[in-house]
């Protein structure tokens, strides 16, 4: 398999197909990670596009110097965009309906698929809900390890922390999930 570094080199030399190969190789991991971090398909699509456009510009302007560490580098770009997006959304004013519920939440519910509406019907969907409720930094480690398939060392680099912090966050995520499981009488089979 041609390495990411070689594909980028070929793209710089004018081979468009190399970039397409690179995109196809990493699109699902990067997109799934973004989606899991921001929780909204449409926003995830925007961030995914912006991430790759920034990648293209960085490569063109000679700012890519990570050789075969393409994925951690791309994840760092997308993660920063996710953080910006989450911050922007937090600054939006909350508009409530007559019952005091955030109308953006209601819109979210209606946009979910029929399958997603049965969120409480099985333990796995409950588990997904709990993962979503974890503190951001704990969820981030889970997402980057399980979706982006980054090593803890790479996650540490992407999140500007160290390996012990990442492992600690993973551990506390597990503790929190176990607490929620106990509270809801869910057992590991």
């Amino acid at each position: 398999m041609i390495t990411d570094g070689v594909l980028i080199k070929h793209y710089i030399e004018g081979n468009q197909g190399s970039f397409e190969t690179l995109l196809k190789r990493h699109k699902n991991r990067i997109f799934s990670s973004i989606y899991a971090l921001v929780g909204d398909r449409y926003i995830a699509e925007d961030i995914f596009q912006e991430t790759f456009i920034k990648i293209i510009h960085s490569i063109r302007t000679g700012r890519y110097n990570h050789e075969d560490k393409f994925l951690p580098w791309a994840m760092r770009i997308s993660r920063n965009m996710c953080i910006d997006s989450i911050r922007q959304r937090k600054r939006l004013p909350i508009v409530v309906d007559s019952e005091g519920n955030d109308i953006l939440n209601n819109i979210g519910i209606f946009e979910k698929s029929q399958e997603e509406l049965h969120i409480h019907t099985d333990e796995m969907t409950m588990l997904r809900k709990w993962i979503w409720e974890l503190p951001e930094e704990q969820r981030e480690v889970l997402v980057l390890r399980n979706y982006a398939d980054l090593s803890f060392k790479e996650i540490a680099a992407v999140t500007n922390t160290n390996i012990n912090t990442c492992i600690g966050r993973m551990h506390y995520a597990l503790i929190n999930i176990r607490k929620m499981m106990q509270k809801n009488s869910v057992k590991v089979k």
Partner: protein
Amino acid sequence: MSDVIMKSNVRLMIKNITKTDLIHYHYNECSPSVKLMIENNLDTNPSWRDYLNHLDLINQAFESLTAPNTTSLNIILEESATTEQHSF
């Protein structure tokens, strides 16, 4: 996180296995010696098994990878093929 959580029952244990070791083991990131140590002593340490089962469960909760839509891919590919490319 260096807290020792479980001690193996095996006399010749070189080191105590920590949760950090178990997390590294689960994600295939531990050294071959720690891997061997965990595998050789897993049956006699139910708490290890329990911890690994929880990690497994979390893995299962992560659904299969989702693909971006074709429009996004086309936008990116168009951008990557613009004539600017030839100016560098």
